[in-house]
């Protein structure tokens, strides 16, 4: 039986399911980085992965501070290159161990330091941690230069969008692996609850299912979405207790 909507499982209770296993907090990327202070190969790999994943908020912040596209690319590349080389993560403690806060504070310090700034541009030209094609493709529609948002707001919004994108991309990959991309698309429409979404009856007909089976499939889809969201956030915080705060922050940013 599909639980009623008001009985949805709280995120604190979602640790995975029989198919995907529990979310192991102790092995999240950011906690690995902090634990090793960037010194171990595993920590370096984890930090690189996080940098590749979360470059867009930094790039958006730099652009909003007035940098032209090419300079912003170099600065973003250089910022992450220095971050990876420096291996100095002591200030993280002051930022409550959250990657989001750490990167924002770091990039502000970084942009305020002229010598570091110049070094980063030079370094950024030579080092391509983030694929340039990716930057240019994603920034094709550059609406934010004239936007009313501040640099901090752009950073926060892009951070939130990146988290949501990661979650949906992972969910899509799971359905794709099972050969169910079309079904994923329909479930996603249901999740977003847009007025033109197909009805459960239409989906049932399209996939030769009963409506009850569609309800159950959607319930599982949403449960998996929640588990992945929690896992994605857990990768960016140092303490399990921070996950819910980050989630609330995410909701607030997305609604702003």
């Amino acid at each position, binding site marked *: 039986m599909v639980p009623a909507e008001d009985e949805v499982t709280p*995120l604190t209770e979602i640790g995975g399911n029989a198919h995907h296993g529990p979310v192991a907090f102790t092995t999240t990327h950011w906690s690995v980085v902090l634990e090793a202070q960037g010194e171990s190969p595993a920590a370096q790999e984890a930090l690189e992965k996080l940098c590749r994943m979360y470059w867009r908020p930094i790039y958006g912040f730099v652009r909003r501070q007035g940098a032209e596209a090419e300079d912003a690319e170099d600065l973003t590349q250089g910022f992450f290159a220095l971050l990876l080389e420096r291996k100095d993560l002591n200030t993280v403690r002051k930022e409550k161990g959250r990657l989001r806060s750490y990167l924002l504070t770091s990039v502000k310090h970084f942009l305020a330091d002229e010598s570091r700034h110049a070094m980063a541009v030079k370094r950024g030209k030579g080092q391509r941690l983030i694929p340039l094609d990716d930057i240019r493709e994603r920034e094709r529609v550059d*609406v*934010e230069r004239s936007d009313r948002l501040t640099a901090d707001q752009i950073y926060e919004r892009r951070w939130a969008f990146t988290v949501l994108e990661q979650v949906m991309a992972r969910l899509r990959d799971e359905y794709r692996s099972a050969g169910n991309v079309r079904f994923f698309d329909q479930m996603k429409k249901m999740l977003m*609850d847009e007025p033109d979404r197909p009805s459960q009856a239409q989906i049932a007909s399209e996939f030769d299912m009963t409506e009850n089976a569609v309800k159950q499939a959607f319930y599982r889809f949403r449960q998996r979405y*929640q588990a992945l969201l929690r896992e994605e956030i857990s990768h960016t915080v140092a303490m399990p207790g921070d996950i819910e705060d980050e989630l609330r922050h995410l909701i607030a940013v997305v609604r702003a």
Partner: protein
Amino acid sequence: MTSVLRLCPKCEAEIPADAPEGGCPACLLEGGLGLFADASVAGVDSSAVASAKADDPGRPASLIRAAARFAEVLGELGDYEPPITPALLKFDPIWDPLRSDPAFQKLCEEKRP
């Protein structure tokens, strides 16, 4: 570059051009978290939600009443509409001022599925 303003057909909020999945990010997140009970999506009969709103025993009406009381106390949530789910109570930042209140914590704990 001039951007075309798009509004979410559901919540009527502006959809940013770089929004994930090209849709309304707030509706995506709220739908994913199940923050708002939606009878049509959840497969819940709409009359069930209506009865919950009408204080039907066994439905989340007591939660709604409690939330409404909190809203009155806050004095700034007059246009906040039920149904309110346990997930909404737990994660919506709108409740942050009350989060440390033992009564609120007890309410959330009691309503955990």
